[in-house]
């Protein structure tokens, strides 16, 4: 596979809810191979900043620009280049894991073997024909990871990736991240120091309003 270079640039991002300013003047720029953790206390806007960076939410100020090999990626194309795991993104509960994957990747289907291998690795293979509603929270988290990474996205967003996972589950993710990190941009919102430690950089969303 030809390696592509992505770049994401966030310029003076600001967001408020009503009269409360969540954050302001956020700048960063990441290229393929780099990773960043967004940390901060609950309610500091970690998830919001992650959504804004993924262009799933609109900032009140500033903008986020994506480039691939120096060329700007339009909003429309963008979603085929990113993968995201977040408590706000749920697969269909009524569908089985396989049906969810088929729906999510109906335009380009990842090779059957590849899907099976990845399911096996995440311990989901034997549950592939169960409706997601019957999954435990840990299994659901693994499925979300599977869906987010199956298309080998160039940019990966993880919002609290380790939540609801046991140590084996966490180990699977961390090994996977170590493996793919050189080829992707990794952006993570987390409160766990182990996870934040996986990233080279971090942004702290604190209470200072300077």
């Amino acid at each position, binding site marked *: 596979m030809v390696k592509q270079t992505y770049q994401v640039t966030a310029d003076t991002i600001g967001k*408020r*809810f*009503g*009269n409360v*300013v969540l954050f302001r003047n956020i700048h960063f720029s990441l290229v393929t191979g780099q990773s960043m953790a967004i940390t901060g206390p609950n309610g500091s806007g970690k998830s919001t900043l992650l959504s804004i960076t993924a262009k799933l939410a*609109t900032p*009140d100020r500033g903008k986020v620009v994506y480039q691939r090999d120096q060329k700007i990626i339009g909003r429309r194309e963008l979603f085929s280049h990113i993968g995201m795991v977040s408590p706000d993104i749920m697969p269909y509960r009524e569908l089985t894991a396989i049906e969810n994957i088929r729906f999510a990747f109906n335009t380009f289907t990842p090779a059957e073997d590849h899907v099976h291998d990845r399911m096996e690795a995440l311990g989901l293979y034997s549950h592939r024909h169960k409706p997601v509603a019957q999954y435990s929270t840990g299994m659901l988290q693994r499925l979300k990871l599977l869906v987010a990474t199956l298309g080998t996205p160039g940019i990966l967003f993880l919002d609290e990736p380790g939540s609801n996972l046991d140590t084996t589950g966490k180990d699977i993710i961390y090994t996977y991240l170590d493996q793919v990190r050189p080829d992707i941009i990794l952006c993570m919102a987390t409160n766990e120091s182990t996870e934040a430690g996986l990233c080279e950089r971090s942004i702290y969303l604190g209470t200072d*309003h300077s």
Partner: protein
Amino acid sequence: MVYTLIMSIFYVLMPVSIVLAFLWAPPAEILGETSRILYFHVPVAWVAVLAFVISGISSLLYLWDRNNRFFILELKAYHAARMGLVFCVITVITGSMWAKASWGSYWNWDPRQSSIMVLFLIYVAYFSLYSAMRENSRRDVLASAYLVFAMVTVPFLVFVIPRIYPSLHPDPIINAQRKINMDPAMQLTLIFSMISFTLFFLYLYTLQLRAAILQRRIEERHHEKL
């Protein structure tokens, strides 16, 4: 300044129109003295439609103008709709008073009554939507989209209802077949009144927009302090 100009002309014209409507214009032949409500009912209805068109066009521009080249379009749309709703209610009230006096009942599902009622319902729906989204950052986009969408259905209504229900409405102004069949004095009074009410609307509208802009500036100042 435009605002002061509108205001001063309005202050001169409005009393003139009122005097003309009550003292100078002759009463209509069959309708009698009740016909004097014409000089208020028709202009108010016209303003309601004008406000609706302004809010519709502002909404459309707001959705189309993603780079914010125009200023405060979302406020323009919202305040025009708000004024439109008020004038719409006045139209219905003055109209049904007149209807009671001349046709015998307040509401007859006359085509004009139906279309103003639909306009009223669209405004009510718009404000229901608007108030349901107090905390929603996408409020302006969604409310504008609704207004633009609803606006598309209005011509269909105007086109279709008269074919199903016959009209009782006197049609002295917009009339395809016949010419204007009004006494010249009545005509002049009506024109005066239309202009006065249009100015009245513009006066209130610009005043509200100025207040809205000030409020927004205060909010922004407040945020900068935080």
